[in-house]
């Protein structure tokens, strides 16, 4: 799919898309990959259910997996970018092996290393992250190219039996800075306390 797909097909605007999706999360926990997914999530409205990150590239899915294994009653979404996902691509096989039913991944795929200067990323070529997920045992995958698919996507990410993975082809956009708390200890303690209270 992505081999045929040029960046011209990437027309979803990330900020309203993420905001609309997270409105429908229904108590799900969200682990944000570093950079733009963290900014998008914070821009949509802060919550102790959001685990922001400013580093640890490649570790969004492993971190979300750990939370999902420790908290089977809670739905967990790893919300990350294409470069972050590819750096941790092996972790999809670990998720496929553990097969947590409460686990979902959304890759915001702009086919670029947007944070560092919009250099070309591998998903602009032949790499198909959803096909990888399928091959390593994810229950289902979904490709999203339209803003209007959010209700269906929310159903898929927050309700369908996991592990599931969706790829959303997003546009390169100029978004205002939205920087959350930077102190990891504060982010982690808030997140942990919120889980313990529920």
């Amino acid at each position: 799919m992505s081999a045929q797909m040029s960046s011209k097909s990437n027309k979803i605007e990330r900020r309203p898309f993420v905001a609309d999706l997270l409105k429908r999360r229904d108590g799900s926990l969200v682990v944000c990959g570093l950079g733009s997914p963290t900014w998008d999530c914070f821009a949509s409205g802060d919550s102790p259910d959001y685990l922001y990150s400013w580093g640890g590239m490649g570790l969004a899915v492993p971190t979300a997996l750990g939370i999902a294994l420790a908290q089977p009653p809670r739905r967990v979404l790893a919300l990350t970018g294409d470069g972050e996902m590819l750096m941790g691509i092996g972790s999809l096989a670990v998720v496929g092996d553990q097969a947590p039913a409460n686990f979902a991944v959304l890759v915001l795929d702009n086919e670029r290393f947007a944070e560092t200067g919009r250099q070309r990323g591998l998903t602009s070529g032949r790499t198909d992250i959803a096909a990888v997920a399928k091959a390593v045992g994810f229950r289902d995958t979904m490709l999203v190219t339209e803003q209007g698919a959010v209700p269906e996507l929310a159903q898929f990410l927050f309700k369908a039996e996991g592990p599931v993975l969706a790829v959303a082809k997003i546009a390169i956009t100029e978004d205002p800075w939205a920087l959350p708390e930077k102190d990891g200890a504060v982010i982690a303690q808030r997140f942990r306390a919120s889980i313990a209270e529920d």
Partner: protein
Amino acid sequence: MQARKVSIVCTVPDGGLTPLLRRIEADAAMRLVTLTSEQEGMGVATGVWLGGQRAMIAMQSSGVGNCINALGLPTAYRAPCLMLVTMRGQWGEFNPWQVPMGQAVKPALEAVGVKCFSVDKAEEVGETFEAAADLAFNGWLSAAVLVSQRVIGAKGFGQK
């Protein structure tokens, strides 16, 4: 492990860990998470702690090199990270490919702030593990138990 409430063990296996990993697999109260690369363990263990439980990562010394950048994650979140490392590339090593990383394990871990506990006597493994686990989980720190080839036996591929 159970005395320190560790219920999830992440691993890329090693020969010296085999009996332990078998026991974990056989124990219904424990979960074994097999990784593709050791750094994933930093993410999983951090996530497990955020979710209110305890995990650790068991690996061969060659895997430590894969973890260095990833160790920034538990450090930044001030989350505990407990590692059990079976050493290669030191006492009686047969394979030269194991030596560069094996010799660099302790300085590399210490350079990124991991507290190292070396063990070279079998009878001290248990208490050392408990001490490292207490430091990690009560101090929200990264700690590694480095088990010498002197304890686990040096591999020879029948050619020593």
